[in-house]
C-alpha cells in the first residue's frame, strides 16, 4: 500500500479520528488507526470498540489501483509524527512489508510497526429503523444545553450518556446524573414514523459536540436498536453503540405548577453565584437562596465560618422562602443559558427548582435542593 499527501490535508482528519483511540490499551490493535486507500481516496478510521470515527480524504496525486490496500498503525505516534513535520511538508506513506510502514518526508524517515487491517474491529452494520436530517447548529445547541448534566461512571449505566427522545412533533434531548437534569427540545416532524428513544454514551456525545459546526449544513442521523450513525459531512462520520437501558421518566420529574417565580438577569445571577461560591465549602459547595419581595439574597458559609452574602434585585412577588443548592449545579445550568434573562420556578424548600430561559419553553433545567 502506498500514498502521498500533504501534511496540511492529513492533519485535521487524522486528529478527528485519533481522538477516539485510547493509547493505553490491553489489546494492541485498539491503539492503532486504520488506514485504507481505494479509488484514490484515503480513509482513516479510529475506534475504541464503542465509538468509531471515520474520515475520508481524496488523494491528489494519482497513484494507481495497485497501490490500494489497508493497514493499521499506532495512532498516537502516527499523529505526533505528522503534526511535528514542518508546515508545507509532503508525506509519503509506504507499507514495506507485513510488519512495517515507512513514512518519508523530505529528509525525515520513520519506520512504524503495523498490524493487519483484517484484525481491526469492523464498523457496525446499521439496519436503519429511523433516519432524518438535522442542522449542525441545531444539534450543537441541543447538546451544549444538556450534556453537562450527564453522569460519569455511575452504576446506573443508563445515566452515563444523553437520551435522544424522538417524539411525534419534537426531538427531546435530555441528560441527568440523578441530582439535576437538563432538557432541550427542537421542533421535529417524525412524519408518521414510530417514536423512538435512544441513549448515546458519554464518550460519543463528547466527540460529537467537538465535531459539530456552527453552521446551517445538514447532517444525517440514522439508527437502529443498538447503534447510531451520524454523517456529519460527506467526509466525516461518527458511529456509536447505544446504551442498552431505559432512561428515567424525565417528564415525571419536572416540577408541577411551580408558583414561586423569580425572573432575573442571567449574567448578574451567575456572577453573584460565582462570588458566593468562593466561600462555600470548597468540596461540597452549598449555598442558600432567601427570597422576598423583588429581592433574592444568596449566602454561603464554609467550615472556617467565613461568609458571603449577595443581594440581587429580581422580579418576585411570591411568599418568602429559603432553599439550599449545590452552587456548581446552578452555575452549570446558567452557563449554557443563552438568553439575557432567566426564570427560576420554585415550589418550596424541599422541591426541585426549574430554570428556564425567560418566556421560552424549549430548555428546562431541573435541580434538586440540598438541605444545609
Amino acid at each position, binding site marked *: 500500500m502506498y500514498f502521498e499527501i500533504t501534511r496540511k490535508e492529513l492533519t485535521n482528519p487524522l486528529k478527528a479520528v485519533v481522538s477516539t483511540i485510547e493509547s493505553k490499551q490491553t489489546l494492541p490493535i485498539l491503539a492503532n488507526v486504520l488506514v485504507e486507500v481505494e479509488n484514490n481516496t484515503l480513509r482513516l478510521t479510529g475506534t475504541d470498540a464503542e465509538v468509531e470515527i471515520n474520515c475520508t480524504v481524496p488523494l491528489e496525486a494519482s497513484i494507481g489501483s495497485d497501490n490500494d490496500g489497508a493497514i493499521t498503525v499506532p495512532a498516537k505516534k502516527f499523529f505526533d509524527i505528522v503534526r511535528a513535520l514542518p508546515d508545507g511538508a509532503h508525506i509519503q506513506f509506504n507499507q514495506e512489508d507485513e510488519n512495517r510502514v515507512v513514512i518519508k518526508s523530505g529528509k525525515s524517515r520513520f519506520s512504524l510497526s503495523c498490524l493487519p487491517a483484517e484484525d481491526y474491529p469492523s464498523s457496525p452494520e446499521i439496519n436503519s429503523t429511523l433516519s432524518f436530517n438535522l442542522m449542525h447548529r441545531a444539534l450543537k445547541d441541543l447538546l451544549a444545553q444538556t450534556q453537562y448534566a450527564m453522569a460519569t461512571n455511575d*452504576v*446506573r449505566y443508563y*445515566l452515563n450518556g444523553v437520551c435522544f427522545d424522538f417524539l411525534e412533533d419534537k426531538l427531546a434531548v435530555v441528560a*441527568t446524573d*440523578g*441530582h*439535576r*437534569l437538563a432538557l432541550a427540545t427542537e421542533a421535529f416532524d417524525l412524519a408518521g414514523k414510530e417514536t423512538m428513544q435512544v441513549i448515546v454514551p458519554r464518550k460519543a456525545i463528547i466527540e460529537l459536540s467537538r465535531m459539530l459546526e456552527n453552521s446551517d449544513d445538514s447532517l444525517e442521523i440514522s439508527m437502529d436498536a443498538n447503534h447510531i450513525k451520524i454523517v456529519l459531512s460527506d467526509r466525516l462520520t461518527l458511529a456509536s453503540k447505544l446504551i442498552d437501558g431505559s432512561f*428515567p421518566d424525565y417528564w415525571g*420529574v419536572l416540577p408541577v405548577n411551580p408558583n414561586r417565580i423569580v425572573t432575573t438577569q442571567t449574567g448578574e445571577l451567575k456572577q453573584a453565584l460565582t462570588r458566593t461560591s468562593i466561600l462555600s*465549602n470548597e*468540596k*461540597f459547595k*452549598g449555598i442558600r437562596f432567601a427570597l422576598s419581595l423583588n429581592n433574592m439574597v444568596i449566602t454561603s458559609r464554609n*467550615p*472556617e*465560618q467565613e461568609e458571603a452574602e449577595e443581594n440581587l434585585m429580581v422580579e418576585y412577588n411570591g411568599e418568602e422562602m429559603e432553599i439550599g443548592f*449545590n452552587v456548581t449545579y446552578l452555575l452549570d445550568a446558567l452557563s449554557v443559558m443563552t438568553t439575557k434573562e432567566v426564570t427560576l420556578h420554585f415550589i418550596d424548600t*424541599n422541591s*426541585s427548582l426549574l430554570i428556564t430561559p425567560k418566556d421560552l419553553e424549549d430548555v428546562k433545567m*431541573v*435541580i*434538586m*435542593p*440540598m*438541605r*444545609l
Partner: protein
Amino acid sequence: MPYAIRNSHIQHLPTLVANQIAAGEVVERPASVVKELLENSLDAGATEVEIEIEKGGINLIRVRDNGCGIRVNELALALNRHTTSKIKCIEDLESLSSLGFRGEALASIAAVARLTLISHFHEANTGYTLQINDIQEMSEPVPIASPVGTCIEVHELFYNTPARRRFLRTPQTEFNHIQETVKKLALSCFNVGFSLKHNRKVLTSLPPATTESLQQQRIAKLCGQEFLEHTLDVHEDREALQLHGWISMPTYSRSQANMQYFFLNGRFIRDKLINHAVRQAYRDVLYRDRHACYVLYLTLDPKLVDVNVHPTKHEVRFAESEQVHHFIVATLQRHLATTMPKTEENTQPQSIVATEPEKITKNTESTLPSLTYHIQPKPTRSAVQETLQTYQTLAAPNSSKITVPQVSNAFESEKTENFTEKITVPQVSNAFESEKTENFTEAIMPPLGYALGQLLGIYILAENKKGLVLVDMHAAHERITYEQLKVVWQTKKNNDVQQLLVPETLSLNDQEIATAKQYETFFKRLGFKFDFSDKKHLLILEVPNVLQKTNIGTLVQDVLADLIYLGVSDRIEEQILTKLASIACHRSVRANHQLNLAEMNNLLRQMEHTERSNQCNHGRPTWIQLTQKELDALFMRGK
C-alpha cells in the same frame, strides 16, 4: 429412606454412647481436655496449677491443682453427666461466676479416655483415688497420700473412638493448641500460677501475678516483650461496664488477627460483635489489612450476657449488644486518640537501632516489616495533661484569644458524642507563633522540639530533648488536616443532604426492607431518607452530600447486611471518613514543597495537638525519634 431405618424402633441410647456423642462437642482434641480440666481447677479456687503433657496430650494429660478438692462420696458423681456443684437451677446461670456449669466435661472425657482421679478434699484427712475405663468400669475409691487439691490424669485419649483419633494432628501441633489454651487461661487468671511441661520438660512457668509489674511480666512472657512495649493501657470504669487491658499502638500491628484476646467476666470469648467494635475503633489509624493486637477484659453484670450458647462456651450473646459495642468503640477510640507526641521523663525511649523488630512476627510478615514496631515511648495520661497545661499557661499571655484544644478532654468519656455546634476547626497552630520560639527555655521544650531543616523535600528534621526527631511531612500534615475535617463533619453530621431528582431504587427482600424501616432513624441521622411505598423496592430520596459520587446503592445494601447479621454497622461513617481522608491527602503538602523554619515549627506544634497524630491516616508512623544514645551508638562513641 433405607429399609433398615424405616423399621427400627426408638430406644434410649446407652449412657456410654450418649456421653461419647456429647464428647464430640466438648472434647475435640487434647487441648479441649486441658481447657475443661483447667477450668475445673480454677473453679475449685486453685492458686497453683501444674499441667503435664506427653506426646501432645495423646498419651497423657495430667492437671494437678491445689484447689478445694472433691468429697470422696462425690468422686463418682463428678464423673456423671449433668452433675455439677456450680449451679442448682437455671436462675443460677444469671449470676454465674464459675467457668463451668454444664456438668458434662468430666463425663465426656471419661467416655473417650482412661481416667484417673485423685482428690484430697480440703476438710478431709486424706486423699482418694479412683480409676475409670469407660463409664461402666469404675473402681471403688481407695485412700492415697496426696496434698489438698485434685489431680486428674487422662490416658490414651480417643482410644475407643478411632474416628476421632484419626483426626488428631502431630503431637507437636496438638501441643501447640494446648499451649494456646493455657495461654488464654493464664491471661484470664493472673492470681493463679501455671506451669506447663511437655515430655517432662518445663516449657512455661508463670508465678501468680498479683502486682502490676508481675502482670506485665506475664504479658511479656505470653505475648512477647515487643507487644508489651507497644501497647496503650486501657482503663475505663462505668457503672455497668468496665474495660481494661492492653491494646497495641496503631503502628504496631500484625498481618494476622492472631494476637487478640478478649475476656468477658474472666472467660475467653470469640465474638463477632467485639471484633467489629475493635476494628471500628482502629478504623482510621491502622494500615489497610493489618490487625491490632489486644488483651482486653470486659466486666459486666452476668445477667446481661448469655454464655450458654455453645458447649465450648466461647460464644456469648449480649442483652444490650449495641450498648456494649458502643462502649468498646468509644473507650478504645479515646485511648487511641492519645497517640500523639508528648514529652515524658520516665519512659525509656526505644531504640530503632537496638530493637529487632522482626523477632515476633517474622513468620507472618511479608509486606511491611517496618510497621511491626514503633519507636515512640509509651504514653501515660498524666504526662500529657501536665505537658499541655504547661503549654497552655505558657501560650496564654501572648494569645489570649486563641483556644488551645483541651486535650485533657480526650479522657472524658463523652467526648466523641459531645462535639457541639460551637466547636470550630482547632486553631492550635497560632498559639505557637514562631517568634515565641526563643521564649521557650530548655525545661519546657515541646515534645517534638524545634525544626532544624528539611531533608530530601520529604522529612523535617527537628531537635528535641532526647535527640533527633524525623517527621514525614506529608503524612503528618495529612493526619492534621484529616482530624480537622473530622471535627467539622462531626459537628454538623446531620446536615448537608442532597435530595435526589431521580431516586436510587434498590430491589430488596422482605427482611432487608423491614431492617431499613427498623433502622430508619439511624439512616436519617447519617443523612439518608428512604421511601417505603413500594413493597419490593427501597427508594433512596436523600443522601449525605459527602457521599456524592459513591455507589450509594451498594453501600445501603451492605449496611443492611451488617445490621441483619451484626445489629450494628459503621460502614457509612467509614465511607465518609474515607472521603475525608482523600480530601485531606489532596490538601496536604507534597514532597518537595519547601517549608521555612516557622512553617515547620508550626507543623510540629499542630502535631502535638492533634489526636492520633503519631500515625498517618493509613497507619504509617508520622515521626520517629533517634535518641542521643542511638546516635552515639552509630558512631561507636563512649564504647
